[in-house]
């Protein structure tokens, strides 16, 4: 078959040979370019999938250990002292008030993350016109509730009047749901 094709090709006029070559060449370039683009995309996708599968396999392999650790962590916490979202929003202003701070306001919404038997809630508070002594008391009260309450962000601003401050504090609480 090839010899017949060869004889056919060689019997063509020179311009026809060049024309045939040009058609084949254009087709080859177009196809090769398209193919390499699709093959590269596929290769990249399959590598990403391989990485994903490897990671997933690792997580699944470590499932028992992770759940055991979670169980152990839960066992170290006193369920009665953990706070749900609502308790966080009410407890922090109460601690502030007890320390002598006023003007406690929530800032932004309550953030909740729940997985398995744990839930973590975060809320930002703004306390204006803060004096130093009540601030220290409030800070100590928060730290005493650790690890059930933790400070995630603490920003203290002092305007020109150095006696009064504004405190932005983002507080996180832990809850054992089950």
């Amino acid at each position: 078959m090839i010899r017949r094709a060869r004889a056919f090709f060689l019997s063509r006029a020179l311009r026809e040979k060049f024309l045939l070559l040009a058609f084949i060449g254009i087709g080859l370039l177009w196809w090769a370019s398209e193919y390499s683009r699709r093959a590269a995309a596929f290769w990249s996708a399959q590598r990403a999938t391989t990485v994903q599968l490897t990671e997933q396999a690792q997580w699944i392999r470590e499932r028992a250990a992770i759940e055991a650790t979670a169980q152990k962590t839960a066992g170290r916490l006193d369920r009665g002292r953990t706070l749900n979202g609502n308790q966080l929003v009410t407890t922090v202003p109460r601690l502030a008030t007890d320390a002598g701070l006023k003007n406690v306001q929530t800032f932004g919404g309550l953030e909740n993350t729940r997985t398995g038997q744990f839930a973590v809630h975060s809320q930002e508070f703004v306390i204006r016109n803060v004096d130093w002594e009540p601030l220290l008391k409030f800070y100590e009260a928060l730290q005493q509730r650790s690890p059930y309450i933790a400070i995630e962000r603490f920003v203290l601003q002092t305007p020109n009047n150095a006696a009064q401050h504004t405190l932005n504090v983002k507080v996180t609480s832990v809850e054992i749901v089950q």
Partner: protein
Amino acid sequence: MCASPLRLLRSGPPPPRAALLPDAQFFTRRVAVAPGATPAEAASQIELALEALSPFPLTQLYYGWFWQPGQGHALVFAAYRRRFTTEQTNAWAEAEIVLPAFAALLGAALPPAATVLLPGTDSLTAVQWGEGGEPTRVETLALAPEAGEEERARRREEFVRGLGGDQTVIELADTPAADASFTDHELTFRSGDVVSRFPASVAAAMDVRDKAELALRRGARRRDILLWRIALGAVAALLLLGIGEVALIGARAWQNVRLRQVAAQKPVVDRIAGIHTLTNRIEDFATKRLLPLEMLTQLVGFSQDLERKPAEILFTRVAADQAAGLNTLTIEARTTNPAQVNAYEATLRALPTVLSADAKFGQVGGDRATFTLTVVFKPDALKPNAAAPVAKAP
């Protein structure tokens, strides 16, 4: 061409176009070639001998020769150009080889002293093989067109007798025809049971056309072969791409199976990862706490005088964020004595709990300046409530 390309391809290659010229137009001679001569040396020796033999200059002859490397003689055949009309020579343009009909038999492997009789329209040609198994003699008997069968038979008998007795005579029924089983390296002719094969280089020397024109044709042929090989390579690449496409389709099917597996495992994995993240976060609440005021205490000192911080420096903003780093405290401050900032920075760097302290000036005007101080403490260097909190606002 487009009617049935598959049938065209399946039908096999056509035989090469060979123009076989009447034997009676040619005279033949056997000329000596120096032993060990290369084809180029043989060609010049043969042309020189032909020039001496012929009454016409070579430019007025159509000539060729049969010589294989190692042979001591070449069989030369030549014809006066004017014996061929322009129409005849124009028809040769499409031919791949042009040679007298008898020359097509010279490559046959026949026993020594064999004679092949080749009938022509108005002639009968005898080709004799010598003891060395190579053609040594060619004789042509012209037959008048008006001669009857009996006359032709009688003259044939006389002709064969005249060649010498005691020979194997092979009488061919037809003129040789080029065989389709040719390659770039070999050319084959058949007539009955006689098969004549020529290596390409030998066949090229047998072509009687003008040698300069033949050189041009050979150049064009080489170019065409190159173009064919390029085309063949391109087609092979297209085939490979086709195989690649099939492979890609298969690979995509495999990839889809894996993607389904990823999707099926995702909820389970997300849950495990979530438990892990949350457990770590809860562990960190107990062990890795953000201690902004403990860090601040380290910067200003423990006494009522805030002895570490120069009095000219006033903190306007103190920020600690777990996202920025558990041990990092960023302070915005202003001063009425910018020169104190470097000294203060050096003091902080010298503290055993401090990993790094960097002050960057913001606005500076006269003796007033604002700057940002970033202090990173060593991990686990600070303990909750380990020291008295900052005695007063810094």
